């Protein structure tokens, strides 16, 4: 529950309450009058455990506290995901805690929606407001609607959805970009109802279809560690990486070979490689002979449509290259084919088909089933895109991450225009605050309890669990406690009788459940984790604690729980039960855009009219350092943008040097990119090897009403794509600004 408002807080509020102030001013006034919320022994160094929430990986953190104030974030050496390592975003999240423009407490909109004028109100009044709106909405037969935080997976996320649904709301979310998104197509082929897990570290050859391996793939810190070992691990040969990517991403830059292929063409290329493997009989026969399933139909009905000649004609990739890709894959001792989590279904089908043909299932350096993914509970939320047609009466937003992960930038104003009341539970000045009628700021991650199911990546069942590293420095609340308070006021039957829900209660309940499982133990160093695994393999379990209380303390000190027991062979077992693989059967090359379009000057220009711009195909991408879940107001992140090719503090657009020359554009020029729905400007960067008819534009959330650093960014590339039709190529006019 929210803490009571102190006299100092009241005075700070009351000075601003008469006319309403902008959020930025409110934040600065507040912070100017406060002191650190918590002080331990003065000047002493303490390490506190927490969990990073910048992405679904949920890496364990250690916060270095001096005199009770966090001054540095490091990865936890006990956490099996990062093993003491931490990415740029994770470290930068310290700046969210100290953000001078953070929301200081509950506030109510005054004036027009989106105008950014607010007046602070006490918590009880804020809860009364939202309760009244939801009551009215329920009685009108139009339920309140909730957008769920994208970075959530685990018991608190389930509790959030349950609590809202208990009061008649419908819950929405954008699927998180983890291996779980690959699960349905993996299941269609193998019958395994589990998340696929790629053994990158032990692979000898990786063929990647757009997988951002060294950027944001599945579980980024795990992926980077695995990539480092794949490249130069002890006692092994250097791994080889081939990247199929529309632009020269950071992963493409690291690759031994990069092929610039549009996302719409990548499934064709994958099936073309499959046809090479089958025609030249380069497939691994072991698994296929026993569990081939409909391989014969696949070979008979599909392969004739994807000959190298046909694929080359459709994609522009030379036949000789397609042949070589297939042969390199087959000749490597432990090859694996990987794919981006947000790839389209046909590409995912094609990638798992290739893995089946090269015998990558259930083998080192191949594909396994992530432990415990089979009994993971799925959140029954609806896709966020469905929200636009509902015209909800009340909308509650946990944070802006569901919107940031959409491939097109939604016009939040339009999406929410039918809502009578919008409430944001984000701790920060972000996209949700800009359109909210009521702000109920929640704790930042360092101030929060955590109980997360990390994105499946390591060969172990894990939970990242931690208590707050610091006390809240501002007048914020626990997210689940807030929802429980609202539910209690409404009188939801489940909430009225139970002990109040809070993240702490959920986390402690999960620890109790883990204690009763009688397996696994607290996060521990590599040696101890491996020892535990050996014990469990022998049928033993050595409890890490003598009592449940002791177990709870050890889990909270270590920052999580791990059961390292891992049983390979689940794919084979499933294939045995269902009698073989079930390949997808795309019997004709789908209608795809041409391999290349003619670059034409814009209408009205003469023969030499490229000065006014030309039409190109748009590819958007999110830079790895941009957080899709957290606070946009982290200055260090903006300094990292575009390195080492572009200038910091601004989005950039990549062009082929020849195309740029025709348009009179040089590296560093400002260029204007216009689609049928929006125009943005960006800095030009020239990239050898990319498609000449493509412009690739970095997507950095543009949040005009945000904090002082975030509001500097102008023009989100996703705004160029209409939300209604984000799939397929979008044509834009590119010209020098």
């Amino acid at each position, binding site marked *: 529950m929210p803490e009571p408002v102190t006299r100092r807080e009241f005075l700070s509020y009351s000075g601003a309450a008469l006319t309403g102030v902008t959020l930025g001013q409110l934040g600065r006034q507040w912070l100017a009058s406060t002191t650190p919320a918590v002080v331990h022994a003065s000047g002493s160094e303490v390490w506190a455990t927490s969990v990073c929430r910048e992405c679904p990986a949920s890496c364990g953190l250690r916060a270095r506290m001096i005199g009770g104030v966090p001054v540095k974030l490091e990865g936890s050496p006990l956490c099996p995901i990062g093993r003491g390592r931490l990415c740029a975003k994770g470290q930068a999240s310290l700046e969210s805690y100290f953000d*001078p423009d953070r929301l200081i407490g509950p506030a109510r909109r005054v004036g027009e929606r989106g105008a950014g004028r607010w007046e602070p109100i006490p918590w009880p009044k804020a809860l009364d407001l939202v309760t009244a709106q939801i009551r009215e909405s329920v009685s009108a037969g139009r339920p309140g609607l909730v957008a769920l935080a994208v970075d959530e997976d685990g018991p608190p996320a389930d509790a959030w959805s349950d609590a809202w649904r208990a009061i008649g709301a419908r819950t929405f979310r954008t699927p998180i970009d983890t291996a779980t998104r690959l699960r349905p197509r993996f299941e269609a082929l193998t019958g395994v109802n589990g998340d696929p897990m790629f053994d990158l570290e032990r692979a000898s050859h990786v063929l990647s279809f757009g997988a951002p391996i060294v950027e944001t793939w599945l579980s980024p810190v795990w992926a980077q560690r695995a990539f480092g070992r794949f490249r130069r691990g002890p006692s092994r040969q250097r791994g080889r990486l081939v990247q199929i990517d529309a632009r020269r991403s950071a992963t493409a830059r690291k690759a031994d070979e990069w092929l610039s292929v549009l996302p719409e063409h990548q499934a064709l290329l994958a099936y073309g490689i499959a046809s090479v493997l089958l025609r030249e009989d380069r497939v691994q026969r072991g698994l296929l002979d026993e569990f081939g399933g409909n391989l014969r139909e696949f070979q008979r009905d599909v392969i004739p449509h994807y000959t190298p000649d046909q694929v080359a004609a459709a994609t522009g990739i030379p036949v000789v290259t397609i042949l070589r890709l297939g042969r390199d894959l087959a000749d490597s001792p432990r090859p694996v084919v990987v794919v981006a989590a947000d790839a389209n279904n046909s590409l995912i089908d094609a990638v798992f088909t290739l893995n089946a043909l090269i015998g990558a299932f259930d083998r080192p350096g191949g594909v396994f089933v992530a432990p415990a993914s089979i009994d993971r509970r799925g959140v029954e939320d609806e896709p966020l895109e469905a929200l636009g047609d509902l015209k909800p009466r009340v909308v509650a937003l946990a944070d802006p991450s569901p919107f940031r992960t959409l491939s097109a930038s939604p016009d939040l104003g339009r999406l929410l225009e039918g809502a009578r009341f919008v409430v944001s539970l984000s701790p920060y000045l972000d996209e949700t605050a800009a359109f909210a009628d009521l702000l109920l700021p929640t704790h930042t991650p360092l101030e929060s309890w955590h109980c997360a199911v990390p994105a499946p990546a390591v060969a172990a069942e894990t939970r990242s669990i931690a208590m707050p590293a610091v006390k809240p420095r501002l007048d914020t609340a626990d997210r689940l406690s807030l929802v429980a308070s609202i539910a209690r006021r409404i009188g939801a039957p489940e909430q009225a009788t139970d002990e109040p829900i809070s993240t702490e209660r959920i986390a402690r309940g999960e620890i109790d459940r883990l204690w009763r499982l009688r397996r696994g133990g607290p996060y521990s160093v590599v040696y101890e984790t491996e020892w535990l695994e050996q014990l469990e393999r022998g049928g033993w379990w050595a409890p890490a604690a003598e009592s449940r209380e002791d177990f709870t303390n050890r889990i909270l000190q270590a920052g999580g729980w791990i059961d390292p027991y891992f049983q390979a062979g689940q794919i084979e077992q499933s294939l045995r039960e269902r009698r073989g693989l079930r390949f997808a059967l795309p019997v004709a090359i789908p209608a795809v855009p041409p391999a290349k379009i003619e670059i034409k000057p814009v209408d009205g220009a003469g023969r030499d009219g490229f000065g006014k711009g030309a039409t190109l195909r748009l590819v958007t991408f999110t830079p790895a350092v941009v957080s899709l879940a957290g606070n946009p107001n982290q200055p260090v992140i903006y300094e990292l943008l575009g390195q080492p090719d572009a200038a910091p503090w601004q989005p950039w657009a990549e062009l082929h040097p020849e195309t740029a020359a025709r348009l009179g554009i040089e590296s560093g020029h400002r260029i204007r990119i216009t689609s049928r729905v929006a125009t943005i400007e960006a800095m030009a960067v020239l990239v050898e090897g990319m498609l000449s008819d493509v412009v690739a534009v970095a997507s950095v959330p543009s949040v005009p009403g945000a904090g002082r650093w975030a509001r500097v960014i102008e023009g989100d590339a996703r705004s160029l794509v209409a939300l209604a039709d984000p799939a397929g190529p979008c044509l834009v006019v590119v010209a020098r600004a």
Partner: protein
Amino acid sequence: MPRWGLVIDLDRCTGCQACVVACKHENNVPFSTPAEATHGRLLTWIHLVPAETPGRVGPSALPLMCQHCDRPPCTDVCPTSATYLSPEGIVAQVYPRCIGCRYCTNACPYSVKVFNWSSPEWPGAMAEMRNPDVSLRPKGIVEKCTFCHHRLMLARERARDEGRDLAPDDYVPACVQTCPAEAMTFGDLDDPHGAVAALANNPRAFRLMEELGTKPKVIYLREGE
């Protein structure tokens, strides 16, 4: 006496910039503004530069920081001895002695010594996140990577308190500690049994601008086969 050195394996390095953030937070390197960045006055002690490697897809992202040369050109030109080579091989910078003449920034062939064009600022509560172990640098002086020298002093104190010698793992700079791809290895170049000495003799090892004879103690391992 150890001779501290750093090996960066460019085949492992992914250019993720975790090292950049770790360095900024650890060493109280202030944030820039867009205007400062436009004028090339971004303050970083470590940053990425594009580096061409024959046979690669495109230029690699090479993390560049003070190379801690054994024959540093910067120390020779410093009129106040503000920058000097420590007995352990760290090119140190004594900020109170620095008069901001920028002779050293001109002499450094790697352009890794940065001039402080403005007073360091951490708005509002952000001042609290500064590391008390690292002194703040005023406007008008030159600063650079110190191999997180303050960590060496703290590690020494800790070892002395515990009545033991400094162990190899006691002291690592912040960038090395956080590197997600495990591309950075730090230690004593003179320890024949240490990982750093072994990697420094790897056939892929090279130093930047070796021909100048500056003898850097930051050693890179070439990317590729």
